[in-house]
């Protein structure tokens, strides 16, 4: 299970091997909602923002 850096508290976040881009993780230590993205070919976590639940018929 890879360990990535939390961009909010700089702590460590454990992410599953098979995690996909867009996958969300709440960092328990700081409460931040984090999103997995690929940046320059490597997986990093960024703060998730501007997301909501889907609505529609």
């Amino acid at each position: 299970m890879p360990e990535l850096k939390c961009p909010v508290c700089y702590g460590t976040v454990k992410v599953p091997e098979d995690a996909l881009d867009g996958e969300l993780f709440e960092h328990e230590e700081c409460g931040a909602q984090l999103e997995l993205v690929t940046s320059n070919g490597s997986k990093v976590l960024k703060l998730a923002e501007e997301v909501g639940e889907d609505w529609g018929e």
Partner: protein
Amino acid sequence: MVVVVKAGGRVLQKNMETIAKSLAGMSGEGLVFVHGGGDVVTEYSKKLGITPMIVTSPSGIRSRYTDERELEVYVMTMAGKINKEIVSAVQRFGGKAVGLSGVDGALLLAERKKRIIIVDERGRNRVIPGGYTGSIRSVNSALLTTILEGGFTPIVAPLALGTEGEILNVDGDQAASWIARSLSAELLVFLSDVEGVMVGGRVVERLSPSEALELSKTVGPGMNRKLALAGESVMATVGKALITSGLGEDLLSRIRASQGTVIQP
């Protein structure tokens, strides 16, 4: 006096004639009807070779994910097929019906989700680009008022205009609730395929708006949304909400007698 009635696609498919007859019976009395029809959209998407994608939000709300091709089928099915079938059926029973969608007269304005959270097939939360679905933000009731004053019954398909003028898919229950609030309706009726809100195998007969909101957190999907919207509507400007069955023959008397679950202060 305005009454807003909403029926989903499944109830309409099962009981179209009775519903059309009941709407004709209430026509001219300030009635606004909002329909769903997701199942028929799915059927036509399949016929056109489009596989519908149903997404589940982290709070458990399941909804259709609408890409550009699906939106096209959605518009054709909702505003075309289903809407005009209801309009012609109501008129066969002597009502004066006018089919509309939230796009017409900019009736419903919605905000499109740029990005949405879904629970993916592995049960994990993920962010994906938002489809052509919207969450309603405002109602222009001018068109509805014009049409009601002309003595016609608006039959509304759940479409809305997005902030860039694009057509969006919106939830029919939400559309009915927003319309009822904007018209300060006396009554908002959700026609479902059960007798009302069930708790312990029995229909809950009466709830205050805050009880409705509380109970909405524990009842099953579909009903949770109706219950929350019913509570919010009555907390705003709507006199009373009724969740009842849209099946059976005695629809009009069920509504007039408020049989089912009544949400009232």
